């Protein structure tokens, strides 16, 4: 096996091995557990840096292992997987630090961090999956690894939320499995390739391909929270804040969106799917989900629920971008994978800080939190403005490229209004929060958690939102710099349309 | 097949079926064990009939071997079933007695 086969495997192991060791650790070994977590996260980050460099140089990274005749387990790194791998690796590091602070003194931490590591392992594996079969394996593994995290608190509410989550995702997994097996019997091994593989295979029945597309997208749409499959997401917010951050920004929702992108670009091929006529319905559904999520977010008083509906809406930008033919829309959709992740994780960190420090769970309780917790609220503000699409925060660029792409493809007539309406709705549900937080007099908090730290809350809770908010601004400001997400996505787009 | 052989075989098959039906009915334990044994006897009769190769000729040894083995197995199985049944009775009686004592 060459070095190039080892690197994807090592990236996988760098979180798997610490995770497995953490499971066996006693509850009281906090230092060792923290050390293992951080060593794993940092090692992974370094390995991913190597991977980015290698993929930029167009080196081939592939690990192949035969599980059964005709079914290969393939890890493969291309530009698209690197985008997702680096996003989840970076955000995992930040989320781990946040989770260590958030769960201080709470029980069952070995179990929590063990599954936390397994979860990121599954995400990274999913990003590097080289064919649909491997993708399905990691997609299901992700479901299994996140279930104990959602159920972590063990309250009846948490267990119910987790059960609903599992019900939705397993049903989705079954649909995905069916589609994948069917396609495998028709079209062979299904190794992902830029530009798609189905267009080159003669003699495929277009009707069967349309049905399979429906099955695949329905399976993936559950995790991507496409309407009407989004029901689990608002209910899963019973999970602890770091888990919500993980679900919404790093792993689960992103895995679904990433899968849709993979299927459209690297299995069907965007041009071939256009010929099949499957893109238009998916695009319309995505557009509807964008509006629907925003409208539902408006009426939520529970902060995490409002953020959850906001995720429903924002993630569909990625699917929307994938359905519009042309490099510019591709750029807009894919770059939102990163941008939405960075901004949404900031929002969830901030929401967790409010809940943990002040006991504030509802928007109506947020009066004046800005004065009590200025740093957290500043981070929240930056991310919220980014979500609305205000330059120079990252979110603006996604919408800009989506709009340009739609115009280029001649779909501007319906995409641009959707984008504008969504921005207006985003403003309508975020600005009142900001107004309350900064300008209304501070009310009595439900629970003032008197910490003996000098800052507004524990440092391990305060730093992560600051870092991710700064990242959201940096990514936007230096969008044109080499190796910025935007530049990288342009690389993907040029390779896809080559 | 000669007529006598056929008669034996048919009788054996009939006994086998009767025994099986009786064994499947929810009867007393002893009844079921006996029924299963009778069913076995029917089967052995059938096998012995199959072994017949005509007057003044040695019978086919293999069905006989089967029958011998089958008889041994049937005895052992009946013994085990009765042993379990006795243990069951003891357990039930003692638990009845305990209930009787406490009340």
């Amino acid at each position: 096996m060459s070095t190039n086969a080892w690197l994807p495997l090592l990236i996988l192991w760098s979180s798997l091995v610490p995770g497995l060791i953490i499971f066996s650790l006693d509850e009281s070994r906090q230092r060792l557990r923290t050390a293992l977590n951080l060593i794993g996260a940092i090692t992974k980050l370094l390995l991913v840096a190597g991977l980015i460099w290698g993929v930029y140089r167009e080196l081939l990274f592939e690990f192949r292992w035969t599980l059964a005749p005709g079914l290969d387990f393939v890890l493969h790194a291309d530009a698209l997987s690197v985008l997702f791998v680096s996003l989840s690796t970076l955000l995992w590091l930040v989320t781990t630090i946040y989770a260590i602070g958030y769960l201080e003194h709470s029980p069952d931490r070995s179990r929590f961090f063990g599954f936390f590591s397994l979860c990121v392992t599954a995400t990274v594996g999913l990003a590097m999956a080289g064919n649909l079969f491997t993708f399905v394996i990691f997609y299901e593994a992700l479901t299994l690894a996140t279930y104990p995290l959602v159920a972590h608190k063990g309250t009846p509410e948490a267990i119910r939320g987790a059960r609903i989550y599992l019900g939705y995702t397993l049903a989705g997994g079954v649909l995905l499995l069916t589609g994948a097996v069917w396609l495998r019997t028709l079209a062979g091994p299904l190794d992902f390739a830029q530009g798609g593989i189905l267009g080159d295979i003669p003699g495929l029945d277009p009707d069967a391909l349309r049905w399979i597309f429906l099955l695949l997208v329905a399976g993936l749409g559950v995790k991507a929270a496409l309407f009407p499959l989004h029901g689990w997401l608002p209910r899963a917010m019973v999970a602890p804040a770091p888990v919500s951050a993980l679900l919404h920004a790093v792993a689960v929702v992103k895995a679904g969106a990433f899968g849709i992108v993979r299927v459209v670009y690297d299995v069907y091929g965007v041009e071939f799917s256009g010929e099949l006529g499957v893109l238009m319905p998916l695009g319309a559904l995505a557009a509807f989900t964008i509006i629907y999520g925003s409208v539902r977010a408006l009426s939520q008083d529970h902060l995490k629920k409002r953020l959850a509906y906001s995720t429903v809406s924002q993630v569909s930008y990625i699917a929307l971008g994938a359905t519009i033919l042309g490099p510019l829309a591709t750029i807009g959709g894919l770059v939102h994978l990163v941008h939405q992740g960075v901004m949404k994780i900031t929002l969830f960190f901030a929401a967790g800080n409010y809940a943990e420090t002040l006991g504030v769970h509802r928007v109506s309780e947020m009066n004046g939190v800005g004065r009590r917790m200025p740093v957290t609220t500043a981070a929240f503000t930056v991310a919220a403005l980014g979500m609305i699409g205000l330059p120079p925060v990252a979110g603006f660029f996604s919408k800009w490229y989506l709009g340009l792409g739609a115009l280029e493809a001649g779909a501007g007539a319906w995409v641009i209004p959707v984008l504008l309406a969504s921005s207006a709705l985003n403003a309508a549900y975020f600005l009142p929060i900001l107004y309350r937080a900064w300008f209304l007099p501070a009310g009595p908090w439900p629970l003032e958690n008197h910490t003996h730290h000098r800052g507004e809350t524990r440092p391990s809770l305060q730093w992560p939102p600051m870092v991710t908010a700064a990242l959201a601004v940096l990514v936007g400001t230096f969008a044109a710099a080499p190796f910025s997400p935007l530049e990288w996505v342009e690389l993907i787009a040029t390779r896809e349309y080559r | 097949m000669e007529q006598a052989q056929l008669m034996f075989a048919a009788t054996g098959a009939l006994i086998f079926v009767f025994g099986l039906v009786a064994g499947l009915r929810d009867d007393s334990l002893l009844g079921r064990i006996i029924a299963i044994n009778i069913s076995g006897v029917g089967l052995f009769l059938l096998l012995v009939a199959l072994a017949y190769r005509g007057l003044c000729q040695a019978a086919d040894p293999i069905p006989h071997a089967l029958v011998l083995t089958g008889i041994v197995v049937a005895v052992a199985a009946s013994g085990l079933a009765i042993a379990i049944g006795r243990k069951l009775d003891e357990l039930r009686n003692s638990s009845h007695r305990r209930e009787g004592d406490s009340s």
Partner: protein
Amino acid sequence: MSSLLVLIATLPLMTALACLLHPRGGDQLSLVASMIQLVASVLLVTELPSRSSLSHALGGWAPGLGIALGADPLAGWLVLLCALVQFATTLYARFYFCDSQARYRLWPLWWLLASALYALLLSGDLFNLYVTLELLGLSAAALCTVGAAKAEALEAALRYLLLGLIGSLLYLAGVALVYAEYGTLDVSALRTLISSSPASLASLVLLSSGLMIKCALVPLHFWLPAAHSSAPAPVSAVLSALVVKVAFYLLLRLWFELFTPVVTSAFATLIGLLGAIAVIWGSWQAFRATRLKLLAAYSTLSQMGYLFMFVPIVMALPEGDTRQFAYGALLLLAVSHGIAKAALFMGIGSLQQHLGHDEIDRLGGSARKLPVTLFAISLAGVALVGLPPSGAFLAKWALISSSLVSGQWWWMLVTLVGTLLAAAYLVRVLGAAFAPTAAAEPALPTCRLALQQPALLLAVLATFGLGFAASPVWDTLSLSPPEVQR
């Protein structure tokens, strides 16, 4: 390497005798014997690729009169499954039965059951198979009574014994018909002889119905839930993982090797249909079960159903790679279910010993107290549901794909529904275990790790081992496909 066959077939019998004569040494003897058996089985399986099948005539008597031992890949893999499960459950039983008196009674029967299992897998003669079947039924029923303190357990054991006897009688009747028609009972000789005739059909039906009682195919399943759920945990593990599996193995032999001219596609579809009913009905009953062991027993019922669903699919496929793929998947599913179910029963046994009950609604807090066991149960559950990365996932993928290829997509629907139902009953258990402790429960002692480890070992093996290293199963099969030997 035919001496390997002799070793595997006779070592359990000798161990049974030794444990009977020297009860105090039973613990050590059993441990050593199960290890030797495991090593021998691994050697046997590694030996398989170099030749199509192994055989040995005991005492130099030729097949027909003497007893011949033989192993092809199908038998070889099941021998390995038996040895693995036997090894783990022997380790487990040592700690499960704290009372040494119970262990004195256990070991001879335990090894008697093992010798029946191995002899059955290695025999190539319909009448020897009858003897091993009887031995299997008797020793299994006797094992159910070890340490039994409840009348229900004994009743279930008795019922199991009597139904087993009826099954064996039916089988023997089938054997008699085969002998009357073809004049031999040697499997390899019969392979070329059997042709389609009313007598063949009658003997096929008798043989199959006898064996179907033993592997609890719906509608002959009614004895299984009670028997498997009331036996002691190590015994339940062996019953569910191995005893029903070897009866199924015999059926496979009959349908795919001996009676191929007689088995029509309508017959195969009927079998598949019964399997499909078992899948759905078993999963549904498992979902509604209130006790963990009952859940596991019903889950066995539904998992056996998947194996039967493979039959019409494999029958419909043309000989060659696609058929090989499905046949290998069938074998893989049987092996992976055996390992996972043994792990599940052992995990449940640990829970039961620790909590004093196995009611699902009262599991609260056990995830915190017995994390190793709960982890083992979850992993075993993953393998039972057929989620990746388990071996059962590969098998289910193959099942779905083969059902599409053979144009029988309805089996796919059953598989999918069954998978979701299986996930549902698993989640019920995990949800209950994750819930906080009920206040009224007394404080519990911590469970010994030695009791928890064997379950974890098997669960990891079923999930990751078979998931990532299952391709040898297909490799050995493709060298000597049983269908092609004809």
